[in-house]
């Protein structure tokens, strides 16, 4: 993930994803809207690993996770292992994933985000007895819905700046 050869674009997109991930719902709006937040960081990491598996590895995904832990007030290491899991699957199957249609990719995104949200809820429940709710399906659904948009935008920038 060195800044040369378009590494800055990867870093910039990750920073943007983190800002989107911590933007909060205005106080005057209904707070349940907060459940509808897609897993922006996971989507961006998934995109870069799928397109450029040699640029973003497990360790960098884990380090990105550390920053996410602090921003989202999760225990250190939690987002790291979740992102590393997503990275592993994207890296293992990137040739197949690129061949998939958008609808199939959306399905994969849904399953990956659902899995990581389940893991997160499990750890939070053990750590702080936060409890369970069906709300954890919402980020997976929303991530699935915004994936085509994320893909188009990032792919366009990637091709324009020839990041390889």
């Amino acid at each position, binding site marked *: 993930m060195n800044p040369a050869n378009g590494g800055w674009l990867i870093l910039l997109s990750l920073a943007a994803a*983190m*800002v989107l991930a911590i*933007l909060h719902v205005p106080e005057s709006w209904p707070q349940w809207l*907060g459940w509808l937040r897609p897993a922006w960081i996971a989507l961006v990491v998934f995109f870069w690993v799928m397109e450029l598996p040699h640029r973003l590895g497990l360790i960098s995904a884990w380090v990105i996770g550390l*920053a996410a832990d*602090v921003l989202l007030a999760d225990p250190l290491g939690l987002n790291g*292992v979740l992102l590393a899991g997503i990275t592993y699957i994207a890296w293992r199957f990137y040739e197949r994933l690129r061949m998939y249609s958008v609808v199939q990719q959306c399905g994969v995104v849904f399953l990956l985000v659902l899995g990581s949200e389940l893991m997160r809820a499990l750890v939070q429940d053990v750590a702080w007895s*936060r409890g369970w709710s069906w709300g954890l399906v919402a980020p997976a659904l929303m991530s699935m819905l915004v994936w085509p948009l994320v893909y188009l935008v990032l792919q366009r920038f990637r091709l324009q700046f020839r990041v390889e």
Partner: protein
Amino acid sequence: MLAGLALVSAILISLELTTRLLEPVRSVIATVVSPLRFIAQSPYRIGDEVGDVVATRQMLLERNELLERQVLELSNSSLQLLNLKQENQQLRELLGSQARVADKVLIAELVGVVPTVNTHQIIIDKGVNAGVRLGQAVIDSEGLFGQIVEVDQLTARVLLITDVSHAVPVQINRNGLRSIAAGTGRMDRLGLENVPISADIVQGDLVETSGLGGRFPQGYPVGYVDAMVVEPTASYAQVSVRPTALLDRSRHVLVVMEDSE
């Protein structure tokens, strides 16, 4: 490789949940990522600024009038306070107990909200540099707000009293009955724990911090009792308390700095 990272994560998570070893690491990372927090909060800041600029004369006049009325009311009650303080001091001397020192406070502004829906935490714009320390109590103009759970150089994270993982030792102002007020995950409700069904609590009682446990200073209002429900088969009464602090509205909060002599 993945298994190795999972193991490292598991060790980090369990270390963090049981010890305070990782706090310096967290605060270093928090300092690094704090620009992102400021960016995420900027739409609201810009909104506030624009609101100030485009405020009409009429709005400003109304606001000014409101503030003047508040100043009058407050200065009136502070006159009485001086009197009461002295009387209290004398009574304490008569009883031979120690005089209470006034707490010093630090004004902080809200610069972010932890976005996860099932947790109630905010970010304030004062950190180690301003003297904020872990565990300090945070209040707003109406009552107890929360406590500091993470500090970096420029910001700090506050766990609100309504978060499900938060609890604070309290007493009923009217009769001194002690209890624990635990967060319920809802912004408008706390629950008192282990209240016997015979306890003398009625709707409207003021609940304040008891100072037991040493983390929160004594005597700050926490909330008013909303309802006490006694189910015939239960061994404890269910008491719900409405927090006095404006947990979802306050833009400015006060960090209580304990005086170390």
